[in-house]
């Protein structure tokens, strides 16, 4: 692979890397026919982000076709290449990215002003395919807003806050912090904002849903969107279905997919009044969730054979996949060990554990059914133990 990024796009690439670092510790790099994909996932697999840079983003983009190369590296190493954004802006003229397969190295060469050349040779590891399967176009609720609106909304929540709940009706969106298992509701501070539909560029709420997700991971996207000025699109569906946030322009697309808490009727609200006693969510009943359209697929094989090949190269519009059980079944490989662990979760576990269970647990039928379960969209294959990262 050999590509060249010039001018202002170097800073955009750097910002994408920095915003991916808010999600996970590793950067997954996959040069594809339709562009360079940079991805990251958090350790509990409840947040996933992908930036796809089209060939036109680069002043030169050449890959060995049919190569199916992918790798991962510590995201801190890549961040050190793009350490100072202001310096990048002022001095970097172009950035070459070259892959050296013999030495297992990815080389970033920054050509800077005043004849300064910065070369970073970063070692990488082979990696499994990392691709979230989600179909945001099928989601009931779609919104688009200028990043400023969302930034101004999240600024009201303390940085330590884990989760927010977003509820939508025909004309309004409410955002409030999620308070769970609080022994005394009086000790908790509830913050709630209400956004009217006319504050958005696009507001289509077909289903009045209420979803709860982790705010921290969202902030990474907001920083990117704000600095590039791109509007943010949000796709919300039922609780349990991940929320998808994306930024798009003609040469790049970024998608942040965040898990949401599964359905809790007590969280639905019709009034804008806050301060209700948050009933603990019902015990996780994995069989009740409808998981068709959003499995996070972890292909655990290092060297994928033809039958294990990752999904067909995603189109420029992102990692969308139609709801075809057959396609899903190729990729739904879940760790039984992990999922079993989740089933014994007590409700006091940290929220992110709950999120993890949503991705994996509900796909796992009780073990007795494994062999007899017909091939449905909830296909689960017992995999060998994955070398975690």
């Amino acid at each position, binding site marked *: 692979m050999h590509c060249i990024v010039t001018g202002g796009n170097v800073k955009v690439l750097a910002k994408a890397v920095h915003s991916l670092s808010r999600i996970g510790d590793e950067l997954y790099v996959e040069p594809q026919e339709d562009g360079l994909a940079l991805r990251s996932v958090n350790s509990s697999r409840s947040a996933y982000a992908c930036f796809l840079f089209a060939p036109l983003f680069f002043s030169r983009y050449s890959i060995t076709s049919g190569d199916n190369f992918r790798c991962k*590296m*510590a995201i*801190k*190493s890549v961040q*050190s290449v793009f*350490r*100072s954004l202001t*310096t990048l802006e002022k*001095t970097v003229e172009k950035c070459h990215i070259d892959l050296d397969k013999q030495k297992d*190295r990815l080389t970033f060469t920054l050509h800077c002003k*005043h*004849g*300064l*050349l*910065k*070369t*970073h*040779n*970063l*070692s990488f590891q082979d990696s499994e395919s990392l691709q979230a399967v989600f179909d945001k176009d099928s989601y009931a609720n779609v919104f688009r807003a200028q990043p400023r609106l969302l930034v101004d909304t999240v600024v009201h929540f303390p940085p330590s806050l884990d989760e927010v709940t977003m509820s939508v009706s025909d004309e309004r969106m409410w955002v409030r912090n999620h308070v769970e298992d609080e022994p005394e509701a009086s000790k908790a501070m509830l913050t709630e904002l209400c956004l009217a539909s006319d504050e958005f560029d696009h507001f289509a709420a077909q289903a009045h849903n209420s979803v709860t997700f982790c705010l921290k991971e969202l902030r990474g996207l907001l920083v990117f969107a704000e600095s590039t000025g791109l509007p943010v699109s949000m796709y919300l569906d039922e609780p349990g279905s991940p929320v998808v946030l994306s930024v798009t322009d003609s040469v790049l697309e970024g998608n942040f997919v965040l898990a949401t808490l599964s359905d809790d009727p007590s969280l639905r609200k019709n009034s804008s009044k806050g301060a209700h006693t948050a009933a603990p969510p019902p015990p996780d009943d994995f069989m009740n969730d409808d998981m068709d359209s959003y499995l996070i697929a972890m292909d655990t094989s290092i060297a994928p054979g033809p039958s294990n090949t990752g999904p067909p190269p995603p189109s420029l519009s992102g990692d969308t996949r139609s709801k075809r059980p057959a396609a899903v079944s190729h990729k739904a490989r879940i760790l039984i060990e992990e999922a079993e662990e989740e089933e014994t979760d007590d409700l006091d576990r940290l929220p992110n554990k709950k999120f993890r269970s949503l991705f994996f647990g509900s796909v796992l039928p009780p073990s007795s059914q494994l062999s007899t379960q017909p091939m449905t969209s909830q296909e689960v294959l017992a995999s060998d133990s994955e070398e975690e990262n």
Partner: protein
Amino acid sequence: MPLSTQSQGDDEQYVLVANLDNARNLSNILKAITFKDHAIFTATTNGLKVTVEDSKCLQANAFIQAEIFQEFTIREDLVAFQINLTVLLDCLNIFGGTTTPGVSTALRMCYKGYGYPLTLFLEEGGVVTVCKINTQEPEEPIDFEFCSTNVTNKVILQSESLKEAFSELDMTSEVLQITMSPSQPYFRLSTFGNAGNAHYDYSKDSDMMELFKCTETQTNRYKMSLLKPSTKALALSCKVSVRTDNRGFLSLQYLVRNDDGQICFVEYYCCPDEEVEEN
């Protein structure tokens, strides 16, 4: 000025008297070499030299010429003592080191000789402070035997671009490798850290390169921990000269302009790391 009238009669007993209208002209440059507590002060009629050393492998010198001082009187050929540099800097900044324009701390530094403390009279806004700092027997500074005749490679760079490189250096690398060559890559700084290696190449035709005189290709490694303190001097400077001699010893010389635009020098000498690999 209150300070000078105060000790007019005592001047006879001091072997060294140095006056500065702006103590920052001394304290700023001393900050560039404060990586160890103790410093050796050496004064001659030319001025003041302050030396700090580390593990016998690194030496930093700050030169403040006699002309920088409003008064510089020395009654012996050589006056030398060792002193706690951190304490000295604390005293020089005793008025809080404000940078209000027009307001500065005036300094009168007096030394009676061997065994006596260094006396500092500091004045700001009419308030006078007297500090007496104990001195010690001065150790002999290491002579790195670095002389211009043995210099194989020399470049002079504008500090601006080197500052950028130093601020980005991979600190997980134990060494900083410097390659100087009459051919590509001309002047290269390399690190070998956890993530991989990184190279910063300065072309000889760069407009940041004021002087480029390299006679042979040399690659030397220096312990990162030893060179890290030199970043302070780099930050203050506007130009830096990098020289290596035939043994691979490194000399970094920084041109520093003080508040009043006067020139002072800071230099660092560093031994190469034991295992030298020729690239």
